[in-house]
């Protein structure tokens, strides 16, 4: 398919972002004994009743669904902490060291299967969504200040947020670059004027739907 640089290869789908987030470690409290698990992705266990242990999120959810454990919400997932983070995000210009990809996915999963394990779940969830909105808004406003740079530092964003802004920012910066350096794109070292078409590195015109 002709068009701009093939976004579909370089974009991660929501499922793929979820997949990556599922590898994050979370604490569980098993309610029965289980032998250690020697997975390709690592070794976990042994699992003893009432002894907390760290496992990847996907494993935690699987165990929880089968009634084998309780999930312990991570430290940062308390209403007080999240409120503090939200205030901080609202006030400051930069972003905190807060990985909200983890946050949202965790929220999603844990809400689904661990309602009883998290106190004030609705509050937590709405706080996380607010934080996310504030952050995205901050990124958007800082994008307005771009003016044809070749590289931009962005504050700590999670993979999901990156995925959201990637198509727009990528193309915007590319347009800046193109207009700043007309002699560099495309390679026009040819003198031949008989060529009616200049070499396209890639068919550039998007097909309008």
């Amino acid at each position, binding site marked *: 398919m002709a068009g701009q640089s093939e976004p579909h290869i370089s974009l991660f789908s929501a499922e793929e972002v979820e997949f990556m987030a599922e590898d994050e470690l979370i604490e569980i409290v098993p309610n029965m004994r289980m032998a250690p698990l020697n997975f390709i992705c690592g070794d976990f266990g042994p699992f003893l009743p009432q002894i907390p242990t760290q496992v990847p999120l996907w494993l935690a959810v699987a165990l929880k669904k089968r009634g084998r454990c309780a999930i312990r919400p991570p430290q940062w997932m308390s209403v007080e902490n999240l409120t503090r983070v939200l205030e901080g995000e609202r006030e400051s210009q930069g972003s905190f060291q807060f990985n909200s990809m983890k946050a949202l996915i965790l929220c999603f999963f844990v809400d689904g299967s661990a309602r009883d394990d998290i106190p004030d779940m609705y509050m937590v969830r709405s706080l996380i969504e607010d934080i996310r909105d504030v952050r995205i808004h901050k990124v958007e406003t800082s994008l307005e200040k771009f003016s044809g740079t070749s590289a931009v*530092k962005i504050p700590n964003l999670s993979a999901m947020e990156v995925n959201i802004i990637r198509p727009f920012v990528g193309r915007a910066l590319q347009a800046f670059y193109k207009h700043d350096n007309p002699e560099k794109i495309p390679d026009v070292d040819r003198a031949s004027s008989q060529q009616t078409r200049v070499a396209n590195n890639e068919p550039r015109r998007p097909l309008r739907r």
Partner: protein
Amino acid sequence: MGSSAGEWSAEQIDDYETLISTTDVELLKKAWRNEKVSPEILPFEEALVKRAKEQIQLMEETVDDFVESGHDPLIASLYQMDLDRAQFLLRSYLRVRLQKIEKFMFYIWKTDTYRNRLSMEEEKFTERCIRDIGKHLEETVLSNLPDNYQSVLNQSVISEEDDMVPEPLLDTFVVAKCERTTRPLYLDGSRQSTGFDSRDDHFLMVPGDLCILRYRPFQEELMSGNISLV
């Protein structure tokens, strides 16, 4: 990595520790992410893929044994989940590469750097693709064009180079995360030789930085592992 023989620099020790503690799954995940975001095809991770395949095969046998021997079905299903995840990563990695090959097959074939980045199977695939597409285009379109315009690679016989061949757009902007401090770079791609210039265009990333940057100047940093794509 340029430190005196016999003495390990802090960086090397760090690398070594990271190396022995990083699972193949994590390495595969990183390779997959890099490959997905990069506009060009990256070197094939032969050793990694081989190891991953072996581990997956071993796990498949283990899970089969579990199921047959009537082992706890919960455990079996958990192992199966882990297996599925590893398989997904491997397949996705290979699939992204194949997609890129399909897009840029002529260019990859005629450019040695890229051709050397393919695995053996990928080379065969590229060859077949080129043959099939070439034949298809010829039969449907090219043979009906006037004589001077019948090449798959050039617009016409008077083209100075192969201008019908799409090239990877190395000037796309990608999001990159810094793992190790990069060398200072001029953003137009030239290298700094000694010291710092008074010009303000040099750009340096330190570990933890997240940037959106143009791919081309940072190719080498990606290859050396100083940055990874997100």
